[in-house]
């Protein structure tokens, strides 16, 4: 396993303060950055990156980078992540220069569009290569923006998850919960920006300001260490009387925490309380006591207190935790789907999608592979690790640049990966995934970093993005000396594995549609309708009574029987609820156990219809 430096900050008391850099990418990112710039709340270098020169012109950040100036000519990416990515690749050098030399790089971006989704993974990659801790704050698009944008966002999210050390996700859909419905749209967006800005500020405060009870990056990572989880974040600040409980209340109100409900499930919770010099122990005590009611006893609470003169009279409470997918899903199961957090479905669908798209290898590889200017020369990749050049990260890039040749075979990186990963055996035959097309672009970067980052100097040892268990296993097996190597390794398995497993055996996808036929079982239940009618007078009379045929016309096709079982034997049934068995109303009207029949049609008529068949 990867070992952590438990207290990296204390190793060297003379170490200068952490150098942080906040990068805003795309429209959403630059909005957040503007907010941060205006608030002057964070002591960090602010870099705004965009493809669109006009947006960049309005941005208030001190450093601005126009992505792909030559390629894009100052026009936006037009919602195409491929363009955004290429633009970022073009401006790689500038980005590297801006980001280099920072200990923490915050990346905030709005996913779904062109620049944000396309460039952010590239920038995260570059930041990672410069040995910084990468902390990503991303917003997901509104659901009304359409399925396509959501897919783009999800793709980008997966890219980012691999490269980021921590990721906080904000859902635009849940933004409505921040504000009153009557408030103007401008306020809504401003609030969302504010929330993101707060999160950045809180994290940077936590890890950088000296505290009475110190929380470090190590605590932060352990709070976020649930594999493939969702980050829960809450921030509240209040002044005046009861400021402590008020701040906590606000923190719990954060839509990401769902009124504290999601905290019931957490294993680790990071709590950071900061206040001016007037902060009293009593207040801290009260806050923690109040918080204790919302978390289970066994939760590991990472607690930190800091006194920050800047805060003046106010007290701020920050809650950070993460929740695994499994727990989220149990919550989701109890919730009406419309209401549920989209993220919960995210990882699941992506697997399902992978399965379903296997026959049609995503259109991406071919078109992308051709125009991509970057794809790496394979020989270089092989040679580089053999002859390790102890050069700083930035230098070899120009040297390698001229060697670039058009992408070789798309599938070529796979075997190389397999050498390192013993897990997925049938992988070589796996078709190129969607991921891969993306990775091709990164290949050179990764390899460069692989070749160059020989110095194992790692300020924070943060090289374990909290993604999949696989990663840990992989790392356990081979103890990679530096971050990018391991990154490179599980890049592939993660992308490949679902397909590697599903592709060779066609029956595998079958279980997916299984739930659908469930109602049918009831169809086959014999003798559910009244058993008597066959011998009854009705049958006899039916023959005699002259009911006009058109009367029967609106009897529905009676291929269903009145189902004995309730369609929804939900929570109402039992006294003893489970832990997660919080009552929720279904979002539809109570379904009658009609088995699809129109109950307004006379019973006898439906029965007759059935008898006739």
């Amino acid at each position, binding site marked *: 396993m990867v070992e952590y430096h438990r207290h990296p900050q204390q190793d060297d008391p003379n170490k200068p303060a952490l150098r942080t850099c906040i990068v805003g990418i795309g429209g959403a990112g630059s909005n957040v950055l503007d907010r941060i710039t205006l608030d002057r709340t964070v002591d960090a270098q602010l870099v705004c990156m965009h493809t669109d020169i006009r947006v960049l012109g309005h941005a208030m950040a001190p450093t601005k980078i126009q992505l792909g100036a030559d390629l894009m000519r100052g026009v936006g990416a037009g919602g195409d992540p491929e363009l955004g990515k290429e633009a970022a690749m073009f401006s790689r050098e500038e980005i590297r220069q801006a980001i280099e030399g920072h200990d923490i790089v915050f990346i905030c971006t709005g996913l779904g569009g062109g620049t944000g989704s396309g460039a952010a993974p590239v920038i995260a990659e570059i930041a990672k290569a410069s040995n910084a801790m990468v902390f990503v704050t991303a917003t997901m698009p509104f659901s009304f923006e359409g399925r396509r944008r959501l897919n783009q966002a999800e793709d980008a999210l997966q890219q980012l998850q691999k490269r980021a050390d921590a990721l906080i996700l904000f859902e635009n859909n849940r933004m409505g919960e921040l504000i009153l419905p009557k408030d103007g749209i401008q306020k809504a967006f401003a609030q969302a920006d504010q929330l993101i800005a707060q999160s950045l500020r809180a994290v940077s405060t936590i890890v950088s300001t000296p505290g009475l009870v110190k929380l470090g990056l190590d605590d932060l990572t352990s709070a976020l260490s649930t594999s493939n989880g969702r980050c829960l974040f809450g921030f509240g600040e209040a002044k005046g009387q009861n400021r402590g409980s008020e701040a906590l209340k606000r923190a719990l109100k954060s839509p990401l925490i769902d009124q504290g409900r999601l905290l019931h499930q957490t294993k680790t919770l990071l709590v950071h309380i900061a206040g001016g010099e007037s902060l009293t122990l009593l207040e801290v005590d009260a806050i923690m006591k109040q918080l*204790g009611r919302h978390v289970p006893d066994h939760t590991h609470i990472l607690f930190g207190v800091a006194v920050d003169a800047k805060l003046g009279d106010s007290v701020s409470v920050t809650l950070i935790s993460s929740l695994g997918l499994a727990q989220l899903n149990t919550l989701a199961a109890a919730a009406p789907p419309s*209401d549920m957090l989209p993220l919960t479905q995210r990882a699941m669908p992506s697997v399902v999608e992978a399965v379903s798209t296997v026959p049609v290898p995503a259109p991406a590889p071919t078109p992308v592979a051709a125009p991509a200017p970057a794809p790496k020369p394979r020989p270089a990749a092989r040679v580089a690790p053999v002859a390790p050049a102890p050069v700083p990260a930035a230098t070899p890039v120009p040297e390698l640049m001229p060697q670039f040749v058009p992408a070789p075979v798309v599938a070529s990186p796979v075997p190389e990966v397999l050498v390192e990963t013993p897990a997925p055996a049938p992988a070589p035959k796996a078709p190129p995934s969607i991921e891969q097309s993306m990775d091709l672009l990164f290949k050179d970067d990764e390899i460069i970093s692989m070749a160059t980052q020989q110095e194992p100097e790692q300020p924070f040892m943060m090289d374990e993005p909290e993604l999949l268990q696989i990663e840990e296993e992989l790392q356990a097996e081979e103890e990679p000396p530096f971050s990018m190597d391991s990154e490179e390794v599980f890049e592939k398995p993660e992308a490949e594995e679902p397909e590697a497993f599903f592709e060779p055996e066609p029956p595998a996808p079958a279980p997916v549609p299984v739930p659908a036929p469930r109602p049918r079982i009831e169809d086959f239940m014999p003798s559910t309708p009244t058993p008597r009618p066959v011998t009854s007078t009705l049958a006899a009379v039916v023959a005699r009574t002259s009911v006009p045929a058109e009367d029967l016309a609106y009897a529905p096709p009676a291929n269903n029987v009145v189902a004995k079982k309730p369609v929804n034997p939900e*929570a*109402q049934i039992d006294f003893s609820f489970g832990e997660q068995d*919080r009552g929720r*109303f279904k*979002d539809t009207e109570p379904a009658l156990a009609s088995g699809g029949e129109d109950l307004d049609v006379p*019973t006898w008529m439906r029965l007759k219809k059935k008898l006739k068949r």
Partner: protein
Amino acid sequence: MAKTTIYAGLEIGTSKICVVVGEAKRDGTIKILGVGTAPSRGVRKGEIVDFDTVHTCLNDALVRAEDYSDVMIKNVFLGVTGSHIESVNNRGAFRLAADQSEITEDDVEEVKEIARNVHTPPDSISMHSVARQYIVDGVEAVRQPIGRQARLIEADYHIVHGSLPRIQNSIKCVKEVPLEVEDVVFNGIAAAQVVLNRDAKREGSLMIDLGGGTADFVVYADGMLTISGCIPLGGDHISQDIAMALQIPHGRAEALKVSEGSCLYEDIPEGEMVRIEDDTGYVIGEVERAFMNEVIYLRVKEILEQVHARCEGQIGRLAAGVYLTGGTSLLKGIDAVAREVFGMKVTRAGSAPVSGVTATFENPQFSAPIGLIRYAQILDQEKPFLSPLKRLGKRMADLLSVAL
């Protein structure tokens, strides 16, 4: 000091609109002062579909009730029903602070708040939230948790919710009369207050109010309100079935159902005929009685089966059996069908004895409106059992004053 209050309950049913004026006495008894009914038009499956017609009918019923009782009615408790009404049980948990060992009032309030906080579908409003029990450190069925030594307190709540726009439409209709709506009550819960006595609730019972357009049902188990809901099927469907089976007008089918209808058809000798007369007594035709009864039987059975399906998980624990009330429960043989469907004791019941117009309380048709008076009384007494309702009533009123 015997203080009495006069309440009026209004039920806008599918077959009739009914206003009951009653006097709630301090000792818990009720005296019915007057009843006004009018046949209802413009209501379908318990929901208003034609405002103007309902308005006229409502005025009729109101005037009759006022004449009868000699009371000027200003405020009413409005009983609503409809398939949009749904219920759920929710449990809220609350952990006491580390240095605190005894449950205080604030803790109880907090846990109530948590338990009542249920995700409801959009556009719906919680009509009732009734505390079922408290669970203190795993000890179930605690009625009074304040002052107990504990670490964890949980509250079980039964929450009944309905579609806000539909409820608002009913209220709007009543406000146009003009009447003030004091509270909106689900008919089933109101009826259960007078149909089920304390023992029946404790032993566990299912009450079905078989109305004209809907069947409202309420399950009490261990003295706790456990399930409540509404099936949009009722007596009108029976009449409709007869009308279509016998090819006679709906009104005639309705009359036939009331005078001759029965759910029992097996023992009827073949060839026994029922005469169908028109208004003047002229016989327009004959139908086989067994056939007609079977049509009725099928529909009644279906309605009861729907209720059964919705209460399935609780059926086994209802010692006091099934209580049938409402106009359709007057149908002959319906208890036998219910026994067949539920497999337990079936009681046909009207309202529990109240003083006043004696003919009224015995009639199961008036269970729900009388129940509204009882409900109002309970609300007034602020029994711990229903105290949250009062707050809810206020909330409802606030909300409506904003909305309208």
